[in-house]
């Protein structure tokens, strides 16, 4: 069939580009293959496998039976899962704080506050610590007999069980997560700030614009792509990377005050020997995270086209 297409003097000159294009495609595939293979083996296949397990009553030691959407219906009636989704919602509401603090600090450093080199290093320091170490440090600081309560008692205020009270456990955990990750945000915003046209800032200053007007009308609009990028990675990070901190700080408690979906997944798999239920919760979390990421990536794409 190919031979008949490529016969004749007119088509001959096209054969070479086709050949080289095919060779190029083969080479490209060769380079991409390891990445595709890794994604397939460690992401796509486990995802499909997990989805399959989520439709059964399997335990760690027994394959179980096909129960269709049973695990998903159970999740919808599980008060602990509902509570974990509500907590995830509260966590997502805190995303603007996770974006604003590093942005303000980065702008201040970029504007040349005294000691900016020092602040840049200090701000980044928590990023290199593992969540377990950060959790352990703050368990000591925030324990009922910890340093913070000692300080409060010193100034005549009563101590608070920061990690043991339902009202304070999640806000405190979020504050610690923010402290441990904002250094990376500062770095990203500093990189973004280097692209803000200096002449525009200078022109605004010469026109008599005040500091806050320069920030609001010149700098922050220029940072829009960075803000959107930071929002995407912060959202995904908050939904999928708080396990270590929560495990060490509160163990998901008190009650369900700091229980997030990923913690519940770990608990169903490891403590309760219910991998099928854990798989169903994982798929639900995947769908939620995927939908949020899709929305945010659409926003980013729109911005790129501008």
């Amino acid at each position, binding site marked *: 069939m190919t031979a008949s297409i490529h016969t004749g003097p007119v088509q001959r000159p096209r054969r070479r580009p086709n050949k080289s294009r095919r060779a190029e495609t083969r080479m490209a595939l060769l380079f991409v293959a390891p990445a595709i293979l890794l994604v397939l083996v460690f992401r796509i296949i486990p995802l499909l496998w997990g989805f399959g397990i989520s439709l059964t009553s399997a335990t760690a*030691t027994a394959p179980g039976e096909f129960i269709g959407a049973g695990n998903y219906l159970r999740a919808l009636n599980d008060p602990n899962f509902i509570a974990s989704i509500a907590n995830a919602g509260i966590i997502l509401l805190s995303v603007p704080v996770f974006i604003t603090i590093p942005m303000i600090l980065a702008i201040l450093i970029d504007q040349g506050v005294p000691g900016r080199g020092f602040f840049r290093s200090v701000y980044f320091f928590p990023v290199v610590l593992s969540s377990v170490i950060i959790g352990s440090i703050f368990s000591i600081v925030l324990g009922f007999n910890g340093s913070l309560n000692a300080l409060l008692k010193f100034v005549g205020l009563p101590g608070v069980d920061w990690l*043991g009270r339902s009202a304070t456990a999640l806000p405190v955990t979020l504050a610690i997560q923010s402290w441990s990750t904002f250094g990376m945000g500062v770095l990203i915003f500093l990189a973004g700030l280097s692209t803000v046209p200096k002449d525009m800032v200078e022109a605004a200053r010469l026109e008599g614009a005040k500091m806050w007007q320069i920030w609001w009308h010149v700098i922050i609009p220029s940072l829009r792509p960075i803000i959107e990028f930071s929002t995407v990675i912060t959202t995904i990070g908050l939904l999928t990377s708080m396990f270590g901190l929560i495990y060490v700080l*509160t163990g998901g*408690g008190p009650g369900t005050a700091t229980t997030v979906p990923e913690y519940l997944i770990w608990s169903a798999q490891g403590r309760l020997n219910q991998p099928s239920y854990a798989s169903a919760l994982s798929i639900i979390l995947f769908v939620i995270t995927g939908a949020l990421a899709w929305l945010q990536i659409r926003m980013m794409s729109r911005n790129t086209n501008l």
Partner: protein
Amino acid sequence: MHKLKLMAAVAAVFVATPALAQEITVWDVNVSRNPTYYDAAKAAFEKAHPGATLNFVGQPDAEYYNLLNTALASKTGPDVIWANGGAQAKNLVGGLLPLNDKLPDLIKSIVGQSAFTVDGKLYFIPFTLQGHVAYYNKDMYKAVGLDPEKPPTTWAEVTKMCDTFKAAGKACFMMANKEGYEAEFFLSEMANQSLTAQQQADWASGKLHWSDAPIKAILQTWVDTYKNGWYQEGGNSQTMFLDEFTLFEQGTAANVWGLLSNVAHWKAFEKDMGADKVGVYPMPSPTVASDQHEGSPGVPLDGGVGYGVNKDSAHIDLALDAIKTLLSPEVLSVLVNDAGIVPANTAVDVSSIPSPGLKQIMGWLATRSVPTTHANASAAELDEWHRQSQALLNGDITVDAAAAALDKVQAQAKPQK
């Protein structure tokens, strides 16, 4: 052809190596804590089985069951498996070999089997007995005018003792419920006298519910004792192992609910505080069931930790022999002397151990042992009880609502026919 032969020979060597090596792998969480016991077991086993190796792999406490479940699911688990008695052991039975007919002589001398038995089949052989008693600080008793040689034997005396400590501005009992373990201990301590033998059996089978009067009363006592100021502040964020026990030794509270074997037990407290400074008593319950006696509280007791055999092990006979060695009186007595466990093998003699606490405990075990209530709850119920107990202390939920939530989990975990 030569290449093919060479490949076949290499393949044969790889296939044959594990069989020739006969390596028995044991997963355990205490390997680094009690090296003398494991060294003694390894030496005895390898002497009796020339060419075979007994290899102990120490696993992290907190992640142990997660790792084990994953390994069993992928058929890469160890030959011999260590487990805690109760819900955790019973959760694993699908991957284990029933041992009733495999080691009959050894089983005859072992007590505390119920924590490892499901439907009449014994899946782990316990080597320690675990139980729950209260330990107290004699100096603190003296300081508030209480007789350090007369610990409470009734609930009224417990209440009076706690009122005395409260009046002196001291915490009566330690509370460490960050992981929910204090709530587990509390359940067994309060049930020990308030449940009849029949109710304990009904509880184990799921016929006695969390919302039934005897259990709901325990939930209410959990809330009442907290409201009455029996505990130090910050209990919901305090870890139990081992911070709670260190704080008890430092005098944060006068009493603590502790264990009989391994950690937080007579040996640890006597070593750290002095044998004359720490006392022990069986915990009285608020109500006394018809088949119990006022003034003679029971000791919740069952198999503590045990060893089982992976049903997918390539060397089942050797794995069984490894358990025989690990539980033999000669090897187990090393663990008794070094770690201060109460052995599940009745052939081990503990009479020569110079501990006043152990002597009292051994006396109670003979006459006053009762089932460990929390060990007979399912893992899912305990997981939920951890959450509900924290919410109850914070006043986020009522006792009725907590009992209803626990009933729901119990019904799923132990469906009634």
